[in-house]
């Protein structure tokens, strides 16, 4: 079931057409990456998905039903531009955020205390937020977002301001949510995190959805057929290989269109080659992102002409 679905969304600000008929669906239980260059329209789309702003045209459904306040109670949101009441105390603010999501006061307090313990900040419960470091404040906000254990969480740049230890903590939290069948929409410019965490992605560019699908498919569609092989011995002559380039003690083989990498492995084995390493070369999400941002088509150029062509899949 699509937990969040956008259908032909248009949004204009004055003469600026920010979203031009965007449609996409986030499936229940997945981690969905929402990407795009700055000003592409991601934030507008997220805001529309959370009923913060209204679209000029198009429809949004949340939890399989038309947008409603009851459905929005099932969503946690960590916006990119975020902050908390600086003069207030940590526990007070967390309880308030829980109350806004419909928790009773007692339940909100109990969950807040549990979350503070989970993120290692129990000792700052009675401190004012202005006394916390940026990273601590960031963790409090993530706790506030996930406090009510929402079936859908939208996390916009959740890693910003965090040290590597806390980045790992947030990744753990996202992984735990997926294991528990909870859905997470993740928007970040850290492409390796997208690759590590997301099941599917959409890339928005200039108000349009230009990439959409599961990560492997997106990367494969954007890559020229190529493999990296390292053998004991010489590389035999192979049919379907357009060119060969030496790299890192092995070879990159750029394949003819339509040639499937497993066919090459089969051919190598049939030719008696002793294969130490065989990997399909796919473009990274970062490269996909750059392609989109620069307005380049796909597939990517020849690996020899572009040493950063891709990474092993």
């Amino acid at each position, binding site marked *: 079931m699509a937990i969040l679905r956008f259908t032909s969304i248009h949004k204009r600000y004055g003469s600026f057409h920010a979203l031009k008929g965007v449609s996409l669906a986030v499936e229940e239980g997945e981690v969905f990456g929402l990407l795009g260059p700055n000003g592409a329209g991601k934030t507008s789309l997220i805001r529309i998905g959370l009923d913060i702003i209204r679209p000029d045209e198009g429809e949004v459904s949340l939890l399989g039903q038309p947008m409603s306040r009851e459905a929005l109670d099932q969503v946690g949101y960590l916006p990119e*531009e975020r902050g908390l*009441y600086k003069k207030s105390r940590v526990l007070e603010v967390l309880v308030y*955020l829980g*109350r806004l999501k419909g928790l009773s006061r007692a339940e909100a307090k109990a969950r807040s205390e549990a979350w503070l313990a989970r993120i290692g900040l129990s000792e700052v419960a009675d401190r004012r937020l202005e006394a916390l470091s940026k990273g601590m404040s960031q963790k409090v906000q993530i706790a506030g977002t996930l406090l009510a254990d929402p079936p859908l969480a939208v996390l916009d740049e959740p890693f910003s301001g965090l040290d590597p230890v806390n980045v790992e903590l947030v990744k753990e939290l996202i992984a735990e949510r997926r294991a528990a069948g909870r859905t997470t929409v993740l928007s970040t410019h850290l492409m390796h995190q997208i690759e590590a965490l997301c099941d599917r992605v959409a890339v928005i560019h200039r108000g349009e959805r230009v990439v959409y699908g599961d990560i492997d498919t997106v990367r494969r569609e954007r890559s020229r057929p190529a493999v990296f092989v390292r053998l004991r011995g010489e590389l035999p002559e192979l049919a379907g290989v357009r060119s060969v380039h030496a790299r890192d003690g092995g070879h990159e083989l750029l394949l003819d269109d339509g040639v499937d990498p497993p066919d090459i492995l089969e051919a190598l084995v049939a030719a008696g080659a002793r294969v130490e390493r065989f990997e399909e070369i796919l473009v990274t999400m970062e490269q996909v992102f750059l392609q989109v941002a620069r307005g380049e088509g796909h597939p990517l150029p020849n690996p020899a002409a572009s040493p950063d062509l891709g990474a092993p899949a």
Partner: protein
Amino acid sequence: MIRPNRVGAIARFEMANVVKRPSFLLATFGLPIFLTALAGVMLLIQGDFLARQLDEVAVCGLVDEAGLFADPAIWTGPEDLDLTERAAAVRVDDGPLIALRSVVFRRYESVDEGREALAADFLPGGLYVVTGDYVESGRVDVFARTGGPVISARHSAVEPTLARLLRDRLLRTESEVRPEIRQRVLEPMELERTIVNDSGAHRGEAERTVELLLRMGVPFLLGVFLLTALLFSSGYLVQAVAVDKESKIVEVLLSSADPNEILLGKLLGLGVAGLIQLTVWGVMALGGSAGAVAMLSTMDVVFPWEAIAIAPLFFVLGYLFIGSLMLATGSLGSSVAESQKLTLGWAMLSVTPLMVLLMLLEEPHGTLGTLFSVIPFTAPLTLMVRMSVDPDGVAPSELALAVASLMLATWLAIRIGARLFRVGLLLGGSRPSWREILRQAKLLD
């Protein structure tokens, strides 16, 4: 559909945020003490100043072209004045004088001579010329120096005193006027007032004065109270929106609660904070004026209880209406200062009745009073004035209509205000055109 538990959560949080602020505690408890002390000091200083002013004499010049003051017996010299009068009079020189009721008239033979003394600043009270055709025309020319005080307790007595002198001199030109008639012309009335109320009881002048003061003072004070409450509330409301914007929690709020709920929650929370403040001020004011209250209870005066009784209802309704407009427009400001400017207009509209208070006191149930009673901006204060002046003239249906119009206007203000509020909260940096704001709020196509 507005969810009471969300409104309650927001109201509770906003109220706690305000009442815990040191500035709130200072304003609530410190401001009345400070203002009382300041008013006391100012009253003492001004009282002392006025007393000294009244002790002094006004010195002015008199040129008698009509010959009414020709009798040398009415003129005297500085040696016959008491010390205070002489102290002022000797500044002129030792010419002939008339001294009456702290006013000294120095005689000059011609206008030129008098103007010379005026130019030399010897005549702070001015130069009066009783013209040659005075008896026929009544004309008296007055010359005064530029740059004198705008108002002066000392100099305000000059012209009534001269008028009395002139009446006296005119009567003396007639030999047949009986002394008692002369006295009546000079002092036409010695008032002895008796007021009869509905129950037939008689009340004296003091009670009547106190009652008049109460009937005028109570609505005036209630108006000032309402304006103060609205101005303070405007500050809290604007500050609350500014904090939301600055702390960047706006999107989290808007994704968790409906703008109607946020607006109403803030209104109620900050309203309760304002109510706490007003209650503390009210209790302190009552405590401070306990003596006056005790005195009033012993006097036979009709206290405008009806106005006091409806005040809480109209305060709350007025606050909810004006406050919702303030929140909506305040959220559109790009800074606290701009937001404050955008909200002040609403507070001023609500105290319009104070600006036409004289008309309302004169004709409480006239066209203006009746019209203002159904306009949501002016209804609270107008009805308090009318109920204070003449409660019997306000029909229950008028009160009901005013309450209904205020409730309807508040509902509309919250509905429309919430749309603007949603757009306003998300605005950052420069503000788009009003047309674009209204379009985003879906108030325009």
